[in-house]
């Protein structure tokens, strides 16, 4: 008795033969042929329906339901990360309030549209309101132009008018008179923050106290708990069979490589074993898989160090070279104080000038003074621009003081990650200087991936920044895993080869994951095929 497949194969051949032998000369011939085709088409459409229904059900029956629930864990981690951010002992109220992030946005205003820039100004004002400071136009008198723009800005903000056309018009008018208006608004905010520093410090201190009391933990406890949760997340979040099914469905892995007879599978197994192991030897294979899992995590961590090595090297060059390390911390502090008093002095000078400008422009009759007001405005813009340079120097010194506070001979990679994580402005500056970044979005991508890496408390590679070079860290990994019978060579850890090396490890780990589950490679292949049919059908329908 023939099975359905054999019958179909035979039937299709005979039907094709039949159609090819039917006459098609006349209209009647053609009608007869078409009628016969329709008849067969209908029968086969019915076959297809039944087969489709059957294979879909069968494919579903192979599916492995993912019972993991990482949402609660992710929520706990997120709450603890907020506490970690506020309790972080390495930075100040300035970073905790997020002022550094906003200043970075202002100083890169060329990458923003006008509306986004207004949102940044708005966020500054919101932060002042958080500490009960209501800013008004008399707070924005850094220059005449700053006052002109910010007065309109505050008015529009107060009226809750979402239409910024009027503001755009005012901005454009000012911009042609004073193209540095944005930098000067930045300085105005910097001055206001310095003036109200105590209120911000008190606000953060109160927040810290509340968090400590409410959660009954200090910074160290918080890190300990986070470390446990990250490890738990790594264990739960480890790729499982459901993940493999999803990846295969998306076409992100080739199931054909999973079959026992696959050349890729065979060569991957043998290429990763120093001494070949008997697959039947379960304890030896278990150890092999366990080592591969650890190696994968180490290589991923190493890949991050490779990714951020330009940043690490830039830091070494700037702050850890012998000539720089001799810079005395006291000297740097002294320079910071000097710059601070210079800024105060210059701002007082500018303030006096502004008083004259505002005094003259408020007069009802402007006669002789009209010319001198223009001169005063030009002079005030010049002074504000000089102040901007002073602030730039101040910012550089500020970070230097922070760095000198923590660096020593044992300053390790993890300390460097933490330092840049704590100072967002300087991290982004360093990223911009270390990579060829084309736009702001790309910079944010680097910055976010850096933070994710820096926050991960399961990183294990320990190395002083001074001694860091990619090759030596790679050698440590190679030496360790060759002892565990894993065949890993220098070339595997070349930056351009890391991804493919991880994929080779993944292939073996995924096969093992499938083998220890109720799924088989053939079932996985079947799920993928049926999924392709469904997608094709959907696409055809859409056409």
């Amino acid at each position, binding site marked *: *008795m023939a*099975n*359905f497949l054999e019958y*179909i*194969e035979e039937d299709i051949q005979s039907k094709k033969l039949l159609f090819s032998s039917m006459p098609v000369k006349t209209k009647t011939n053609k009608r007869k042929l*078409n009628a016969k085709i329709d008849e067969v*088409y209908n029968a086969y459409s019915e076959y*297809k329906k039944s087969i489709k229904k059957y294979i879909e059900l*069968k494919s579903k029956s192979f599916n492995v339901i993912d019972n993991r629930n990482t949402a609660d864990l992710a929520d706990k981690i997120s709450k603890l990360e907020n506490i970690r951010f506020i309790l972080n002992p390495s930075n100040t109220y300035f970073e905790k309030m997020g002022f550094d992030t906003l200043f970075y946005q202002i100083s890169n205003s060329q990458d923003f549209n006008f509306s986004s820039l207004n949102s940044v100004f708005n966020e500054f004002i919101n932060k002042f309101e958080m500490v009960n400071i209501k800013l008004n136009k008399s707070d924005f008198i850094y220059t005449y132009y700053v006052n002109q723009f910010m007065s309109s800005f505050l008015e529009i903000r107060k009226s809750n008018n979402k239409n910024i056309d009027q503001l755009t018009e005012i901005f454009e008018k000012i911009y042609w008179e004073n193209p540095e208006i944005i930098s000067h608004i930045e300085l105005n905010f910097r001055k206001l923050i310095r003036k109200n520093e105590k209120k911000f410090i008190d606000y953060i201190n109160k927040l810290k106290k509340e968090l400590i009391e409410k959660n009954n933990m200090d910074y160290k406890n918080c890190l300990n708990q986070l470390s446990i949760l990250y490890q738990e997340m790594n264990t739960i979040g480890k790729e499982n069979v459901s993940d493999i099914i999803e990846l295969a469905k998306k076409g992100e892995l080739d199931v054909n490589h999973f079959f026992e007879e696959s050349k890729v599978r065979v060569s991957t197994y043998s290429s990763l074993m120093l001494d070949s192991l008997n697959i039947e030897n379960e304890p030896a294979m278990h150890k092999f898989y366990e080592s591969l899992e650890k190696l994968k995590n180490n290589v991923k961590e190493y890949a991050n160090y490779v990714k951020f090595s330009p940043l690490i090297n830039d830091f070494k060059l700037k702050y850890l070279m012998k000539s720089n390390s001799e810079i005395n911390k006291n000297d740097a502090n002294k320079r910071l104080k000097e710059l601070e008093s210079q800024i105060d002095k210059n701002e007082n000078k500018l303030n006096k000038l502004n008083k004259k400008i505002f005094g003259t422009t408020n007069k009802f009759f402007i006669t002789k003074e009209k010319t001198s007001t223009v001169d005063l405005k030009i002079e005030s813009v010049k002074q504000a621009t000089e102040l901007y340079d002073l602030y730039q120097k101040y910012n550089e010194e500020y970070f230097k003081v922070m760095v000198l506070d923590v660096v020593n001979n044992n300053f390790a990679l993890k300390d460097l990650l933490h330092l840049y994580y704590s100072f967002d402005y300087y991290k982004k500056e360093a990223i911009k200087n270390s990579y060829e970044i084309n736009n702001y979005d790309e910079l944010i991508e680097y910055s976010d991936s850096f933070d994710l890496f820096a926050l991960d408390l399961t990183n294990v590679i320990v190395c002083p920044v001074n001694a860091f070079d990619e090759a030596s860290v790679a050698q440590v990994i190679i030496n360790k895993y060759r002892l565990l019978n894993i065949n890993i060579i220098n070339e595997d850890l070349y930056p351009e080869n890391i991804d493919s090396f991880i994929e080779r490890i993944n292939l073996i780990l995924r096969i093992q994951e499938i083998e220890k589950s109720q799924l088989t490679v053939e079932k996985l292949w*079947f799920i993928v095929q049926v999924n392709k049919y469904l997608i094709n059908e959907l696409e055809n329908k859409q056409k």
Partner: protein
Amino acid sequence: MKYKKGDNMNKEEKKVDFDLSLLTLNELVNLYDNVTNFLSYLSETKIEDTKEED
């Protein structure tokens, strides 16, 4: 018609078991592919009506 030896066996051979559960996963995929491809072939083989007279 005279009885020929083996006639019963031929009839038996031509019977078809439509039970899909008898097929392996590979065979099921082949079956679906064959049917789908044949349906496309049928659509392409059909001749459009012309005004040609008999």
